[in-house]
């Protein structure tokens, strides 16, 4: 006990600006970690069901084996996702009591909806994973459907909460500074929900599909060219490749919504320093003393993209009070990173499609497989960069135009210690997850797969 007391003593100091940075870093770290697992939780069950459906309908034993093995992966990633998600709900209170205390009555509602979906997911993930060989094939397949639906509903709910931070709606402030009236449907379906939700949902399918496909692309580059490995590549890759072009279109719409509703954000994303028509797009580049340096400029393109006309007036950072400007360089570089990865993945998807149209097997092309082997990494970078854009460009606000992040952070000091502890814990958790998954994959590779060796299909009792 004395040891514990000694540990906690530095935490009694009051919060400082460094604490705010530490609190934001801790939130970024834990959210950035959880979001990868959340993607797998949303999309992997659906991809696994596609494989199982194929296996059951065509009697394809490779597909059944894939579904079964992917469900083992789900067992790990869902568990780690569940606990890392729990950490986030604790952190909302521990790190941001100002946000929850003042806006919980509105902001909290989407999370309450999410609670139902998460519950359903937890129940049916268990039935699906533990039900192999014990349930009839059809019952087993059907037990997976609620997982995919719950993943969808959960994404809508949680992303609606994030969207609300960008376009807060559905509440009235009383004279006492407390929320006096709440309109729940307006909270959930706020102005940013409709474009943030599909963007994240597609991102989840792209991250999961490309990541899974990468694993099998690497397997093929290492010489495993059997039908099982090719199918393990093709199912997730096709899912992700379908999502990629839709994602670019959705992202384009989302960007124009930001021009409309949060021009300061857009100015930071595109490094628009001065308001006016015919603003150039800047690829790369950073802001040094208010000047754009080192970037490649394409004249008029930002104005054109913002309003389909080079003469569209775009609000620049000069219109945004200094104390309301987000850190533009971080936002801009993350934005460019997301776009670069996104278009690279679109190119990869198009390459796959072209080869298939010309009746060629894409998995025969070594160069294509090399590209595909890094697709998972690119998708994760794109998604993480996208979240950095969303979260950092909202600064200094935690609730856009209403509550500053600095006013929402806890008054308890010593967040730096907490951040260090969390960083160590999550490093260990991340390493352990990868080690366990790699051990699984090695075991699978060692098992010989032949058509005669099939204790795997779900067999009814």
């Amino acid at each position: 006990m004395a040891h514990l007391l000694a540990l906690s003593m530095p935490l009694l100091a009051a919060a400082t600006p460094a604490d705010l940075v530490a609190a934001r870093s801790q939130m970024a770290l834990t959210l950035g970690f959880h979001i990868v697992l959340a993607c797998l939780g949303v999309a992997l069950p659906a991809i696994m069901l596609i494989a199982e459906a194929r296996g059951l309908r065509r009697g394809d034993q490779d597909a059944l084996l894939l579904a079964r093995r992917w469900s083992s992966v789900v067992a790990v990633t869902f568990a780690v996702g569940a606990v890392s998600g729990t950490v986030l709900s604790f952190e909302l209170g521990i790190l941001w009591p100002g946000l929850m205390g003042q806006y919980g009555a509105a902001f909290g509602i989407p999370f309450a909806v999410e609670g139902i979906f998460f519950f359903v997911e937890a129940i049916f993930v268990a039935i699906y994973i533990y039900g192999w060989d014990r349930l009839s094939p059809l019952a087993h397949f059907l037990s997976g459907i609620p997982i995919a639906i719950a993943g969808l509903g959960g994404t809508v709910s949680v992303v609606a909460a994030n969207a609300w931070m960008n376009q807060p709606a559905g509440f009235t402030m009383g004279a006492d500074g407390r929320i006096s009236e709440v309109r729940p449907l307006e909270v959930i379906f706020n102005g940013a929900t409709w474009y943030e939700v599909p963007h994240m949902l597609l991102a989840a399918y792209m991250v999961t599909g490309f990541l899974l496909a990468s694993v099998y692309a690497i397997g093929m580059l290492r010489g495993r060219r059997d039908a099982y490995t090719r199918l393990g590549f093709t199912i997730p890759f096709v899912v992700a490749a379908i999502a990629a072009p839709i994602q670019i279109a959705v992202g384009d719409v989302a960007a124009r919504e930001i021009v409309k509703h949060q021009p300061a954000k857009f100015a930071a994303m595109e490094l628009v320093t001065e308001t006016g028509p015919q603003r150039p797009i800047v690829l790369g580049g950073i802001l040094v003393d208010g000047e754009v340096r080192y970037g490649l400029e394409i004249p008029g393109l930002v104005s054109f993209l913002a309003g389909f006309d080079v003469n569209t007036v775009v609000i620049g950072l000069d219109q945004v009070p200094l104390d309301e400007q987000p850190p533009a360089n971080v936002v801009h570089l993350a934005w460019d990173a997301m776009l670069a990865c996104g278009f690279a993945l679109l190119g990869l998807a198009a390459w796959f499609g072209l080869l298939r149209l010309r009746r060629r097997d894409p998995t025969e092309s070594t160069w294509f497989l090399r590209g595909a082997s890094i697709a998972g990494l690119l998708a994760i970078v794109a998604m993480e960069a996208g979240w950095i854009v969303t979260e950092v460009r909202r600064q200094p606000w935690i609730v856009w135009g209403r509550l500053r992040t600095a006013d929402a952070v806890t008054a308890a000091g010593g967040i730096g210690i907490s951040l260090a502890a969390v960083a160590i814990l999550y490093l260990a958790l991340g390493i352990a997850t990868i080690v366990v998954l790699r051990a699984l994959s090695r075991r699978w590779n060692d098992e010989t797969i032949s058509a005669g060796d099939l204790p795997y299909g779900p067999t009814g009792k």
Partner: protein
Amino acid sequence: MTPAESVAVVLWLGTMIYAVFGGADFGAGLWDLLTGNDRRGKAQRELIDRAVGPVWEANHTWLIFDLVILWSAFPGAFAAITSTLYLPLALAAVGIVLRGSGFAFRKLSLRLTGRRAFGLTFAVSSVVTPFFLGTVLGGIASGRVPQAGGGDPIVSWLNPTSIVIGLLAVAAGAYIAAAFLTADARRSAPTVVDAFRQRTFGAGVVAGGIAIAGLLVLRVDAPRLFEGLTGPGLPFVAGSVVAGSVSLALCVVSDARWTRAFAVTAVAMIVLGWGVAQYPLLLPPDLTIAAAAAPDGTLQALTVITVAAVAVIGPSLALLFWLQQHRRLESHPEGQALSREPRRPPP
């Protein structure tokens, strides 16, 4: 009943269910820790694995459910609690991470060293996590969380009431877990029935002892809560004592099913008794449920969400438990690989 009160009832019922099912999960981890070396504990650990595997994530979700209801319906109280009791909450969060991941990783580890390390992580964090969560409840119940938040970060949870409730949370979980595992063992692992039956009795006696000693501590440390428990809460306290005693008697005569039912009742009654004892307060000593409540729109939304949750989750959970009780969830994608693993005796 006002909308705020009905949401408060939902909150307490959620806490009650989490105390029972979450407690049983934590308790299973405690028995995993105390069950001896690899060889002696094998049959018992396999039973624990089978019993906890398919249900722990669902059981754990009740905690999330409580958190989202609390922060939406009573946002100020939530912020007051988290800005005061952040240390035990953070420690509990760490425990939850280690516990869940340790359990999942152990399941899929083939090497004995890996299984031991992950198993130990799972088991130790199963013991400390309910303690920290108990200290949080103790801090709230003994009136140490000021309405405005920012209360004493140490004394708010390192105080006699918190420590008693922390210990009670651990012991009650162990008691319910042993009762559940005894019933499970009768169906699938007859050789370990007696071990868990004895543990049910032992843990029940310890939990009952802590509860009674706790009342004496409350009398000095949290007199208002004590008055509540011996006043309006008395029927629940008495009910808990009776149910606990009956379950111990049934344990002696080896009726596993009814032992389990009465053990669950004994623990559930304590949580409900606490709620009744401090009614109409949400955060003693001053903040009432009515004063802490969010606007009606939020409360209505939460009521709809609760009804939807009961309609959707109720049947789903029933299906999960039914399938588990009928041994339809005992496979695992890697199950065959696991059973092939040779178990070496410890060096």
